[in-house]
């Protein structure tokens, strides 16, 4: 990501060549207070880490980068007003998206109205891509339904005599958790793997023994949990109590939680989970990001920080390639470039379809010994995929 000095680096709304010392101003609205303040602050840290690192390298198009961050208080009306102000009144050069689907959709409308490139760090729900936005891109590897894609490919590529024949699904009644499990279910069913249990449970479920009894009775080869944390853990323990031993067990979210191993009595061997970001992923820019972020903040970045950083990387790649960063015609060039190109980021190479949905999938991690390691896809794996999984 070494920068060439662009000839047409403009400033506020003008097409004339900008002064090399004028900063490129990027407008952002984030939920720094209210319901989404935790992840909102995480994304802010990611944006700021990106700004710091890019400025150390000489900025964008030879100009320093400045972030103008407003607080939308997790409020959809506020976020609209914020982007109106940033684009219309403050005449920022570029914008980055806010956090959460609920805020991304209204703010993307404003960006669309002004013809601004709108790269956003938080739009995993499929509604985001059903609005007909032409300028929006989700800066992450995949939406919920595609989280398990590498796992589906891997299972279906197994020789017929080893391939699992039956699968049991249990998912929380929640768009994200269910989306992950059903994405895999569709693909495995299409590949001839029979669904023998398909359970949906409400988020307040505390007793999982009934679901576990059904799954254990089915003796399914594959167990898929569309879970958050506590439900995933409770279901696994209930299954262990019934002596059920699947050949493959995959759970969304729960296994990547730091408390997971002790919660299920350290019987983690072979448990799989999709993940959008890993500090250990061997992508060139990720090593730099983790090192510099850790040095500056005293702890390693998590997924929210990585999503913010990725957004910065996508916009930077477009600006660098097109050679401009201002409102007006330049924005359409940036949009066209992102749509047509692949961008190398901390979460891997990203490309998008015409709705702005990323075409990738999540990495698949597996518990091996006392650690969770990337096993799929092959180019970034840290360990071999273990199948069938050891007994738990």
């Amino acid at each position, binding site marked *: 990501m070494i920068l060439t000095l662009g000839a047409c680096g403009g400033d506020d709304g003008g097409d004339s060549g900008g002064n090399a010392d004028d900063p490129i101003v990027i407008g952002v609205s984030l939920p720094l207070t209210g319901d989404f303040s935790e992840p909102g602050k995480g994304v802010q840290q990611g944006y700021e880490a990106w700004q710091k690192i890019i400025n150390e390298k000489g900025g964008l198009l030879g100009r320093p980068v400045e972030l103008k961050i407003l607080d939308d208080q997790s409020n959809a009306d506020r976020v609209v007003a914020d982007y109106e102000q940033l684009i219309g009144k403050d005449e920022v050069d570029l914008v980055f998206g806010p956090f959460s689907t609920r805020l991304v959709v209204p703010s993307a409308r404003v960006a669309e109205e002004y013809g601004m490139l709108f790269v956003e760090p938080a739009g995993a729900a499929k509604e985001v891509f059903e609005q007909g936005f032409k300028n929006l891109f989700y800066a992450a590897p995949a939406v919920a339904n595609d989280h398990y894609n590498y796992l589906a490919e891997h299972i279906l590529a197994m020789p017929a005599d080893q391939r699992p024949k039956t699968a049991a699904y249990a998912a929380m009644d929640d768009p994200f958790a269910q989306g992950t499990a059903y994405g895999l279910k569709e693909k495995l069913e299409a590949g001839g793997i029979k669904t023998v249990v398909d359970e949906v449970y409400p988020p307040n479920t505390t007793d999982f023994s*009934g679901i576990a009894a059904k799954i254990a009775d089915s003796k399914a080869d594959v167990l898929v949990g569309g879970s958050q944390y506590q439900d995933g853990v409770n279901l696994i323990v209930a299954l262990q109590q*019934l002596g059920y031993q699947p050949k493959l067990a995959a759970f969304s979210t729960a296994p990547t939680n730091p408390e997971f191993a002790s919660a299920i009595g350290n019987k983690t061997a072979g448990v799989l989970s999709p993940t959008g970001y890993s500090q250990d992923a061997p992508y060139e820019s990720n090593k730099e990001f983790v090192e510099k972020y850790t040095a500056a903040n005293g702890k390693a970045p998590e997924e929210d920080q990585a999503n913010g950083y990725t957004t910065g990387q996508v916009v930077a790649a477009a600006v660098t390639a097109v050679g401009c960063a201002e409102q007006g015609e330049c924005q359409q060039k940036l949009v066209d470039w992102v749509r047509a190109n692949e961008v190398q980021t901390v979460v891997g190479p990203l490309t998008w379809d015409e709705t702005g949905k990323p075409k990738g999938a999540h990495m698949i991690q597996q518990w091996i010994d006392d650690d969770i390691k990337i096993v799929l896809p092959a180019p970034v794996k840290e360990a071999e995929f273990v199948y069938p999984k050891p007994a738990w």
Partner: protein
Amino acid sequence: MPSGALLFQSVLLGLLLGGLYALLASGLTLYFGIMRVVMIAHSAFLILAAYLAWYLHERAGIDPLLSMIVTVPLFFGAGVLLQRLLLTRLRPATLTMMSVLLTFAIALLIEGLLGYAFTGTQRRINLGYGSASIEVFGARIAVVKLIAFVLAVVALSALYLLMKRTRFGRALRATIQHRDAARLLGIDTDKVAGFGFGIGLATAAIGGTALSLDTTIYPSLHWHWIGPLMAIIVVGGLGSVPGAAIAALVLGMAQSLLQIPLGTTWAQTVFYVALFATLAIRPQGFFGGRLAQRF
């Protein structure tokens, strides 16, 4: 058509679940029986006991069952104090309604303090035997669920004997049946009511410990429990401990068996359907009524 093995397994799970429900609900029905108090905070105390069991296990390596040596007397004392210092101050005419507000506030207070002390992170006691099970005719019984069931049987039997065979139990039953008459007979009903409330809260200490063996806990978990527990005591007949136990077993079994054809969401609604049916058909409860008068 579910297999015989699944049916048998579900019956066993339903029985174990019903036993746990009975233990968790017994205190709730006792408070109402003794002094017409609707104790919304009962499930918050359950979670508090579960947290204490977790904390003692985490910090001192004490088995959750041993933690009851501390929590049971502690909760008994807290119950007596709660009744004597707060609930007796409510006016008798509006006692039932105001007790809902008061104990709701106590529940929020406990939840807030748990969040403050232990954060919202979900916790689970990591027991060596957490996933161990015993095989019975092809079905499995988890050791932790069996322990919880045994705790329920012991606690409820002790409660029953206490109520039926001791002088204090007779005084408590008299207080439940007719407070004024009991007072005329020389029973210090205020003191008896305080001890009764303490015993109710002591069952929460045992129930919370049983719960901690096999559940992931977090501060707001109690809101998920209070609804089903309230349904159980209404179906069982308010104030009747045996009624609550029978209702808990019936509903636990129903939930477990309905799970097979209907799935989790509908199986859970059995509590509310039963609650509605009870209020519509037999408001005094299906298993209480005259039983409640006699305890």
